[in-house]
């Protein structure tokens, strides 16, 4: 298929025909048009106003007595905010409680006191004279620092024994490094200030919380040794993956015995490496990078305090870069946590770092995007998420079975769509475990669905697949499933990480539940699965022409002009406008001097946003394809570059004058990281 766009249209038509013919035969009298739900129909977001002059860059957030909320900021302040619910039509009132601490990224209210972490210490604040301002800034525990900006500290949360748990970020020197003691570790500290190292291997552990069983989970960001974001169950003595922290494992009190040299850098999946390296803990749930977040942040357990619909017992996980909240269902199989991550609510105004429950069961999201950027463009803020009591049609849980998965829905499903194998797809994949920043999706293969059975109440669907692969992430899509009254799912996909496969009875395959291999089914699968071979081939072909790294032979006099573009912090190119004559032979070097992945893509005029969206839609294949969509609007591009890498390409500037654009299409970046290639007449 030469033209991928046409290819897609044909597939879509095939798909629609498939669905309509199916449902018509099943229930001819009904209104069979699919009804769409939107997140805002169930979960409205309300903005909390911030007075002029206050930089409410939320680093920590906690509820206080009398319905007040305390917020700690990156400027080192602690604000007490009264009436954050804006009850009685009254705006919230802000009161400065404490000031001048060093980037407070965690705040808690424990037994009547505010506790927080700043860069160098765990601090307790007290107002001794009752004037409403803290006058005792008590250092509970202090740790050394090297003076690197990336040495952040987070917490405290309270564990079941009453200890405070904090985590220390790795420094960044072109790669993550533990520049001073206990950086890259989770520590437990008693109220008296006695510290016990608890677990190692952390990279950027900004969010952690207890689940409803009292177990600690932490959220990690993609980076070196971290192929993709994830949520990991942390137990004493665990090593969760980044070896930099292991230089401290020989210190007294360390429950971790691994040494840096024990960790192989082979690029095998982490789960495989963990089999050979006892003590290496693998994630409970992987979050596929750019699809479900790019920078996981706060974790909020949905217990009794919450009122967010039918997801009790699950975890909500924020994302800073994508300004959204995801949902995690966890189950324990053979004593190991695993489960599925789902989209939940996007569209927040800035980068979410913290969430907490309001007294009415609503959820506050505290935000800041300074230095990293986010889909929501506001620099900071607090927003409140409510559930309006209406029941969304969602996949409530996914439980692993000896032979596949059981999907539980929040509402009864339309039996015909639920029994149709074309409604689903299952793909398994993994990530590399290596020192490199991030990882492409590897070893992705489609799992054939062999049988489908529906529970008598039409609420549960069991999918029997040809096999499950332990350690792998399983993308489960249910695009075709409809509710009884023919709504499509609010979110129709999830990613289940299989760490263990339960024993037990497999589904007896009968004539009724067996899926017959039908060729049109396969077509539908191809539409939803982005690994169609022809498409990839097309992509590669296009890529070669658009990514010329050798000077073309016909450029006998060399390039007419050369230039170097690099980055500035905060998702910017250092050059935001280039003016060249039409037809110029241009040599462009893109040097990625940032601490995250970037590419440089030249597009047609006014097309960078569209190309950015197309890049996001590459889904699991995005990274492998350097986030370069196969589109005529992509004119030239570099590869996706690791921090510190550069790529030089040779471009012939278009003959037609105009404002062409260049953009980083790494998901989340395209809205701000772009510039104009102003082509003028010769």
């Amino acid at each position, binding site marked *: 298929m030469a033209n991928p766009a046409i290819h897609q249209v044909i597939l879509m038509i095939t798909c629609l025909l498939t669905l309509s013919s199916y449902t018509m035969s099943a229930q001819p009298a009904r209104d069979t048009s699919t009804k769409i739900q939107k997140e805002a129909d169930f979960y409205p977001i309300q903005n909390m106003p911030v007075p002029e002059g206050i*930089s409410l860059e939320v680093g920590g957030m906690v509820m206080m007595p009398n319905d007040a909320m305390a917020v700690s900021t*990156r*400027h*080192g302040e602690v604000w007490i905010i009264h009436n954050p619910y804006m009850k009685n039509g009254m705006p919230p009132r802000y009161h400065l409680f404490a*000031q*001048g*601490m*060093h*980037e407070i990224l965690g705040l808690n209210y424990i037994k009547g006191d505010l506790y927080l972490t*700043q*860069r*160098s*210490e765990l*601090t307790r604040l007290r107002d*001794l*004279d009752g004037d409403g301002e*803290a*006058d*005792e*800034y*008590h*250092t509970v525990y*202090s740790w*050394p*620092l*090297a*003076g690197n*900006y990336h040495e952040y500290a987070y917490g405290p949360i309270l564990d079941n024994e009453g200890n405070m748990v904090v985590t220390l970020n790795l420094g960044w*020197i*072109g*790669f993550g490094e533990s520049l001073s003691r206990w950086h890259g570790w989770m520590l437990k500290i008693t109220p008296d*200030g006695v510290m016990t190292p608890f677990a190692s291997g952390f990279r950027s552990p900004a969010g952690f919380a207890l689940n409803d069983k009292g177990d600690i989970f932490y959220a990690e960001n993609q980076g070196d040794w971290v192929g993709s974001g994830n949520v990991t169950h942390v137990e004493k003595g665990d090593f969760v993956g980044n070896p930099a922290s292991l230089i401290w494992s020989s210190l007294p009190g360390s429950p971790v015995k691994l040494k840096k040299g024990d960790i192989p850098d082979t690029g095998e999946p982490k789960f495989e490496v963990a089999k050979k390296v006892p003590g290496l803990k693998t994630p409970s749930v992987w979050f596929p990078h750019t699809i479900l977040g790019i920078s996981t942040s706060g974790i909020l357990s949905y217990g009794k305090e919450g009122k967010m619909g039918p997801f009790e017992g699950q975890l909500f996980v924020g994302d800073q870069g994508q300004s959204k909240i995801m949902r995690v269902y966890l189950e324990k199989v053979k004593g190991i946590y695993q489960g599925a991550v789902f989209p939940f609510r996007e569209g927040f105004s800035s980068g979410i770092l913290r969430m907490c429950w309001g007294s009415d069961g609503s959820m506050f999201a505290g935000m800041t995007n*300074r*230095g*990293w950027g986010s889909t929501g463009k506001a620099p900071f803020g607090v927003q409140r998420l409510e559930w309006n009591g209406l029941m969304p049609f969602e996949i409530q849980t996914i439980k692993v079975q000896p032979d596949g998965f059981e999907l539980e829905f929040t509402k009864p499903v339309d039996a015909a769509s639920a029994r149709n194998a074309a409604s689903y797809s299952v793909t398994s994949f993994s990530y590399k475990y290596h020192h490199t920043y991030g990882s492409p999706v590897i070893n992705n293969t489609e799992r054939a669905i062999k049988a489908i059975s529906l529970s008598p109440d039409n609420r549960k669907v069991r999918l029997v697949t040809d096999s499950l692969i332990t350690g792998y992430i399983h993308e489960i899509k249910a695009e075709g499933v409809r509710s009884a009254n023919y709504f499509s799912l609010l979110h129709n996909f999830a990613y289940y990480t299989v760490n263990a496969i339960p024993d037990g009875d497999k589904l007896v395959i009968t004539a009724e539940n067996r899926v017959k291999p039908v060729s049109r089914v396969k077509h539908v699968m191809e539409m939803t699965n982005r690994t169609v071979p022809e498409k990839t081939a097309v992509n590669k072909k296009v890529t070669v022409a658009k990514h010329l790294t050798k000077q073309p032979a016909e450029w006998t006099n*060399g*390039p007419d*002009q*050369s*230039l*170097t573009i*690099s980055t500035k*912090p*905060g998702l910017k190119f250092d050059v935001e406008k280039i003016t060249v004559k039409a037809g110029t032979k241009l*040599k462009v*070097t893109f*040097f990625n*001097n940032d601490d995250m992945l970037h590419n440089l893509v030249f597009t047609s005029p006014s097309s960078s946003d569209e190309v950015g969206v197309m890049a996001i839609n590459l889904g699991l294949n995005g990274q492998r394809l350097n986030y370069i969509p196969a589109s005529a609007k992509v004119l030239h591009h570099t590869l996706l570059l*690791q*921090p*510190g*890498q*550069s790529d*030089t390409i040779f471009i012939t500037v278009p003959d037609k004058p105009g404002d062409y654009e260049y953009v980083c299409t790494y998901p989340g970046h395209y809205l701000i990281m772009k510039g104009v290639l102003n082509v003028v007449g010769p």
Partner: protein
Amino acid sequence: MRKVKAIVSLILLIVMCVPLIQAQNPKPGFVTISLNDLGLFRRAEKGWKIGSALNGDLYSSSVINLAKGTGILVSLPQESENPNLQTMVETGDLELDLDFMLSKGADARVYLQGRYGIQLSDSWAVPASRLANCGGITERWDEGRPGMNKGYEGMAPLMNVCRAPGLWQHLSIVFRSPHINASGQKVGNASFEEVYLNGVLIHSRVQVSGPARNAPFTDEKLVGPLVLQKGQGVVAFRNISYRLIHPLEVRLDKIKYRYYKGALKSQSSSTSNQSSNQSFPDLSKFTIASQDTLSQLTWNTGKGDELFAIDIEAEIHIPTQDNYTFSLLTYGLGRVYIDDKMLIERITNRWNHSYRKEQVNLSPGAHKLRLVYVKNVAEVKGALALSIQGLNTDKKDLQDKSSTPIAEFTDPVVINPQSKPYLLRSFLNYGSMKLTHAISVGDATHTNYSYDMKQGALIQVWRGEFLDVTDMWVQRGEPQLAMPLGSLVSLSDAPSLAVLPDAGAPWPDSIAYDDMQIKGYTLDSLRYPAFNYLLRGASVTDKISTAELGKSLLREVKVTNAPAKLFLRVTAAKKISIVSEGFYRIDDKSYYIRIDKRAKPFIRQTSKGNELMVPVVNDAPISYYFTW
């Protein structure tokens, strides 16, 4: 912002590099006005005297106690009719450096060319911005103007950074005389290009349209004498030196270049920030891609700013025999040869905004200038800047605009405490070190200090604005550094408390991290902190607050469970002078310590100078004033 930053760094640079108050050898090009006697002054008035040291208490009185000798010029208030002391030498454009000292309530003026005045006045700890503050530009006066407007063109200093009476202060001025053409017509105003007081920029490019009030001359000329004018109280001067600035008539011609292309040596793929051993490539091993002549000195021959090398040769025409300073900035490697001899080699990893300077003596006439620039870093734009300055000339850029790096600016973020003190934890530069557990405290009186919580050390104090936090609060704030904005007095970063086994034991440089437990701080009702820490079992409270309306800091140290032989080192300096009982003057850093004699302070001699010590008694508070 970069500008602000540049200014701040300049301030720091000056504060750190120039021991402000020390007698010093003149800098290159500077001429010292000898204070061996009054021979270099035109009217040796009775009202001035030469001596070697001022031993009196000018902090609280105007009583002069001048030691015999030379080097210090002092005004004698009682015996004066003509208040002016005028140098024999007459100057035009110049850079002027001097130290001065005022008695309590004193005022005086320095008139450049006997016409354009800078106020020297005891405005110690005055929080308001006033014309009369020390360093203010003297107003002009016109009786013909109506009402209150007779005085005009006076200019208050940007900050009041005046020191306490009786302490040496430093003034540094770059001055341009009025422009007067060949037919004697004035075509441009005189201007104070830069004025620094105690290391802080207090004026920048301020023009003055004519002679100031009470100036001894009322006309305007190309040259004039330096006039010191006394007023109330005592004023003393020392280390008066100046550098004449003449225009430098230098030009380049016969500029030609050879251009080498490609990856001569690239660092760009390295993910590590560690500098690797770079060496200068031997260009003779590379092929010349192109060569041509140039009309201006530039790296930018229109072939882009990829990896390349350019070898430029030119003739430089030197007007007079002199020691010339060449300053080179390159993003990449650079070399300067004069008459085939290498003068400067600049090898830096990645890029670095500091110039490399070298001096060479050149005779008049044509010299061969060769410049090699190797742009071995892909991640930055090309930049090549070369300037030349004679001992008594302007600095002249030799490169074309197309070759110069373009500075970038960020909006600055500055904290200035309003009513209550502001305490800020941050990283903090101290010399070449980056302190990680530092806190700075400032208040509305512009009295500020920093404290290293890891050592219990008062590391610096300053007057003026509080902190620039741009490097913390803009973008990721990668340096996480707070930058003090005023006139900084750098103190010791060593711990304040130590057990000394015997009286001669050296004071320790630092406390190991695990030997000290930081316990935070408690604020009093005015929000001044008492820092708390445990030092090997001893519990320490160290309270530091502003006292005497911002004139002093009051430090109160109390130790519970104090071990035997524990001492508080109040300060260490080259020399600690006793003004009166319990009242000490530290001359090299210019501050006072006042401590109750009941604390039994004593001075001990060390190899580095003096240390002011107090024995620590369990549970007995020690307090002292730090005054400057």
